[in-house]
């Protein structure tokens, strides 16, 4: 385990919104081929961490390194090119595009085809377009029976779970090294959740490194190699799922909050 190279290395990551410190000196390491879960109560700053990694937000201070390349200060589209793909908590598929086109968007950063090329059927453009189309087939491999029949339907016509699948397939088509999944099982029924667990493992077995935010504890316990717990922007625990589960600070962060708000 220890000889694996680091994919993601976060050091002292801090983000303030006015007087609120959403993420406070957050450190984490994610090694190649790991599934690391980021958990914590609502408002703990988990999604902010994802937004900071993917370049949607700029950190106040700290560093995010992806395979030794500094990501802080790079625009979001370049971070994708460096091998980070993500999904969103409140699914963001392109509603008017078909499922196929949504997934093709994933290939955007590694295919090259311009306006002149596409208008003139330039051979290089035609090849790039064909490669992108072929990637759709690879990207939906893990949920072929679900998405194959819907490939030419517009994304707004999809069920909630299929939108999630489309979003994940789109991220896979970007051929990432690190996949950030923001609550992949949110809003899923128990059966779909089991499917998602299998899916995450299958993606890891294909060589992906996965960093995910998840609220559903049994799922987290089942699939994670390591769990990182956040509360009020601060990392309060890190370790194997079992260790974290019995950590008194974690129990307090969850149950204390619930008792207070009940």
């Amino acid at each position: 385990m220890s000889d694996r190279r680091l994919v993601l290395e976060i050091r002292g990551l801090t983000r303030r919104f006015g007087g609120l410190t959403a993420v406070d000196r957050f450190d984490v390491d994610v090694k190649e081929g790991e599934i690391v879960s980021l958990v914590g109560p609502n408002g703990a700053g988990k999604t902010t961490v994802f937004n900071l990694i993917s370049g949607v937000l700029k950190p106040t201070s700290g560093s995010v390194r992806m395979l030794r390349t500094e990501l802080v200060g790079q625009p979001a589209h370049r971070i994708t090119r460096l091998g980070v793909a993500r999904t969103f908590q409140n699914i963001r598929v392109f509603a008017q595009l078909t499922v196929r086109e949504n997934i093709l968007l994933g290939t955007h950063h590694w295919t090259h085809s311009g306006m002149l090329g596409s208008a003139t059927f330039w051979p290089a453009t035609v090849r790039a377009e064909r490669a992108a189309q072929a990637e759709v087939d690879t990207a939906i491999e893990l949920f072929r029976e679900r998405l194959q029949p819907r490939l030419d339907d517009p994304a707004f016509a999809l069920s909630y779970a299929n939108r999630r699948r489309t979003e994940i397939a789109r991220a896979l088509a970007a051929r990432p090294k690190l996949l950030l999944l923001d609550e992949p099982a949110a809003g899923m029924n128990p059966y779909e959740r089991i499917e998602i667990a299998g899916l995450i493992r299958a993606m890891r077995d294909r060589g992906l490194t996965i960093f995910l935010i998840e609220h559903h504890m049994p799922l987290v316990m089942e699939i994670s190699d390591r769990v990182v717990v956040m509360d009020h922007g601060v990392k309060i625990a890190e370790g194997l799922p079992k260790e974290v589960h019995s950590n008194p600070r974690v129990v307090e962060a969850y149950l204390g909050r619930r008792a207070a708000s009940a």
Partner: protein
Amino acid sequence: MSGQPAVFDGEPGHALKRFWESGPSGWNRTLTRPVVLVPFFVGAAIVPLILQYLEDNSSWIGAQYWTLILATCAMYACLAVALNLVVGYAGLLNLGFIAFFGIGSYAYALVASDQIHLHFPLWAALLVVIVVTLAFALLVGVPALRLRGDYLAIVTLAFGLIMTNLILDLDRPPVLAGHQFGPDGLNITNGTNGLHNVAPFSLPTSLPLLGDIPHYRMYYWVFLGFLALSIFCMLRWRNTRTGRAWVAIREDELAARAMGVNIFKYRLLAFCTSAVMAGIVGMIDAALVFNAYPENFAVQQTVQVFVMAILGGLGSLPGAIIGSIAFTIPPYVLQQFVFYKYLIISVVLIAVMVFRPEGLLGTVSLRPRKALGGTIELLTAESAEEVAEMPAVSGADAAEIEAVTGEIVTPEQKA
């Protein structure tokens, strides 16, 4: 809503029914097939020949007149298609769109008239028009495209108004802070009079088989050719990487960025391409009417092209053609109602906005987005429902998961 492509097989009655039921996206798909577009353009091209035949073989006179109207119609169709690129595909509310049409017409008029004594051949003039419109598009686009929604609309509207004044005032040397630029007699744009005696393109005046080709008919064909070329390019772009990136930015900027799309680059690309298309249309127009007028920059023109594109449906190319036909032909047919023209247009437009906000063939609508405090953004027809539905789904699901698994589920935070 069915996303199935409307394929014509089986009984014709069924095919029509299926076409009707395929919804706006299906209509667009069917109407943009070569099997529909090629006959349409061939048919459109022979209409003036039919008019000529009618004039020759009956007492009716008006082939010239109606060919000019058709040319105007084709011109507006070209503009509506170009506007569709920037507003319909890329979702950028460019209210200064028509200024690029005017810039194109003046750029051509300056290099093909006696105004500054330049008479460029067609290819060189085309190059000048492209370079000049591109330069203006970059000048506005580079700073303005960093803004969004209403702000972009305000900046582009202001650009259009500034261009009108610039054209009107450049009949004398510009004076800035007491310093005069250029000699006293400098007159570039000829002010309110516009540029006259603009040379038409050096096109053949007769062709084998077709015989003599009157001026208007030739330019109708030129517009039609440019329209066909624009539509071909637009369809190709829409179905390849560039066009997908445009629509993705329109649909969800954040997600597009997360997929590696350089938002600024693609916005600028859409803005400039559309501007250059409008500029070329302006150039053809200047050659058609031998003039370039300050009215080419009028805000009413922008409104007119917007109305056509919106009525037909933003993002829909057949819609743009239908919209331009609907707003150029009837005013001439109903000459006696000419005083009520804008009244009728307004009523039709309000009716369309009430009953079909996304236009006849469109899937995108211009409606205030409530979630953003009522700012006018391009809103896809379905995303409003989605916003309403999403929190409900997660809430219900949290309860369901608790019931099924006995787990404590923290309900999702509502945005």
